[in-house]
C-alpha cells in the first residue's frame, strides 16, 4: 500500500514536470496554453496528495479554468495563435540555462538540509483552534490568526482589478466581442450550470467554517459562473452601474478596514476579534470577501475584453 502511494506521487510529479516542459518549450503558443491548462489540472491532484484540499479546490477553479481563459483571450488578441517558431539567441539560452540550473542545485542542497519531520505550526493551530470562531484550520488562519495577511491580499486583488479596469477604460476600440452570438446550446448549458454554480459556491462558503472551502474558493467559483453568464450574453456584472461595481469590488477591503477601525476605537488590537460575536464577524467577512473576489474575477477576465457601460448609465 505504501509502495502504491509512492508510485502515485512520482507519477503525478513526472506528469507535472512533463506538462511544464511542454507548455514552456512547445513552439506553438496555443498548444502551450492547452498544456498549461492540463498542468493546472494535475497541480490539483498534487495538492490532493499533499493533503491540501483547500488548495485543490482553488486550483481546480483557477489553474484549470480561469488562467486558461485569460491566456486564450490574450493570445487571440496579441498573437496569431498559429505556430511561430522561436529563435532564441544561443548566448541568452545558455546563460539562462546556467543560472536556472545553479538556482535549482542550490535549492536542492537547501532541501537536503531541511529536517524530514517537523511539526511546523500544526500543533499551535490545533491548540488554539477552540479559541477561534471557526472549526477549520485553514479558515481560522485566514480570518483570525493571520487576518492581516488576508486584509492585504484583498487589497492586492483590488489593485489588480483597478489596473485592468483603468487600462480598459482608455481603450477606444472594442476589438473582441466577448459574448457569443445567441446560441441555444450555450444558453441551455449556462441555464443548467448557473444555478448549480450559485448553490455550490454558497455551499463552499458555508463549508469553510468547518471543512475545506471558504471565501476564496467560493468567490472564484462564483466568478467563473459570472463569466459563463457573460459569455452567454446575460450581462450581470458588465451592466452593473459603475459606482455600484466599485463599491462591490472593494467590499472585502472595506469590510476589513471597517472592522479594524472599529476594533481599534474600541480599544482592542488591530483585528483582535472579540470573543462574543466573533463567529458572526468572521462569516460576514467571508461573505464580503467572496462577493468582492467573485466580482474581481469577472472584471479581470471580462474587463479587458469589453468596455463597461458608459457613464451615462450611472444613476
Amino acid at each position: 500500500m505504501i509502495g502504491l502511494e509512492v508510485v502515485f506521487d512520482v507519477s503525478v510529479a513526472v506528469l507535472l514536470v512533463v506538462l511544464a516542459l511542454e507548455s514552456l518549450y512547445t513552439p506553438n503558443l496555443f498548444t502551450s496554453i492547452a498544456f498549461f491548462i492540463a498542468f493546472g489540472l494535475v497541480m490539483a491532484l498534487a495538492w490532493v496528495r499533499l493533503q491540501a484540499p483547500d488548495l485543490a479546490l482553488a486550483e481546480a477553479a483557477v489553474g484549470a479554468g480561469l488562467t486558461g481563459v485569460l491566456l486564450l483571450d490574450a493570445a487571440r488578441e496579441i498573437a496569431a495563435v498559429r505556430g511561430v517558431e522561436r529563435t532564441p539567441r544561443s548566448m541568452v539560452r545558455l546563460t539562462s540555462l546556467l543560472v536556472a540550473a545553479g538556482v535549482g542545485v542550490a535549492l536542492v542542497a537547501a532541501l537536503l538540509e531541511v529536517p524530514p519531520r517537523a511539526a511546523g505550526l500544526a500543533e499551535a493551530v490545533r491548540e488554539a483552534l477552540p479559541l477561534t470562531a471557526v472549526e477549520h484550520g485553514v479558515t481560522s488562519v485566514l480570518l483570525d490568526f493571520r487576518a492581516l495577511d488576508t486584509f492585504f491580499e484583498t487589497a492586492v486583488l483590488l489593485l489588480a482589478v483597478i489596473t485592468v479596469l483603468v487600462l480598459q477604460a482608455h481603450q477606444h476600440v472594442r476589438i473582441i466581442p466577448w459574448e457569443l452570438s445567441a446560441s441555444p446550446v450555450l444558453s441551455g448549458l449556462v441555464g443548467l450550470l448557473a444555478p448549480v454554480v450559485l448553490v455550490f459556491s454558497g455551499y463552499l462558503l458555508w463549508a469553510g467554517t468547518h471543512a475545506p472551502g471558504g471565501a476564496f474558493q467560493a468567490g472564484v467559483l462564483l466568478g467563473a459562473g459570472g463569466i459563463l453568464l457573460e459569455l452567454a450574453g446575460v450581462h450581470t456584472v458588465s451592466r452593473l452601474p459603475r459606482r455600484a461595481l466599485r463599491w462591490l469590488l472593494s467590499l472585502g477591503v472595506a469590510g476589513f478596514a471597517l472592522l479594524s477601525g472599529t476594533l481599534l476605537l474600541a480599544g482592542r488590537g488591530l483585528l483582535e476579534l472579540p470573543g462574543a460575536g466573533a463567529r458572526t464577524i468572521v462569516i460576514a467577512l467571508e461573505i464580503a470577501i467572496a462577493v468582492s473576489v467573485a466580482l474581481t474575477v469577472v472584471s479581470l477576465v471580462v474587463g479587458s475584453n469589453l468596455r463597461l457601460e458608459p457613464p451615462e448609465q450611472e444613476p
Partner: protein
Amino acid sequence: MSTFLVVSALVLLATIGAGLVRVSRGPTAADRMLCAQLFGTTGVAALLLLAEAYDRPPLRDVALIFAILAALVLTVFVKHAAIHRHSRDGA
C-alpha cells in the same frame, strides 16, 4: 478494495500521459483543446476514486468544480473559433 481504487486512479493518470501525445501532435487546435478538456474528465474520475480510497469527502467537491468549470474553457475556445471562422468567411 482501497488498493484496487488507487490502482484504477493510477491507470487514469497513465491515460493522461498517453493523451499528451494527442495534445502535442494535434493536428488542429480543436484536437488539442478537446484532449486537454478530457484530462479534466479523467481528473474527475481520479478524484472520485481517491475520495473513496482515502475516505476524504472534500475531494468530491474538487471533482464537482472540475466538472462544472470544464465548460468554461471550452466555451471560450469555441467562441474564438467561431469568431475566427466568421471573420474568415466574411473576408
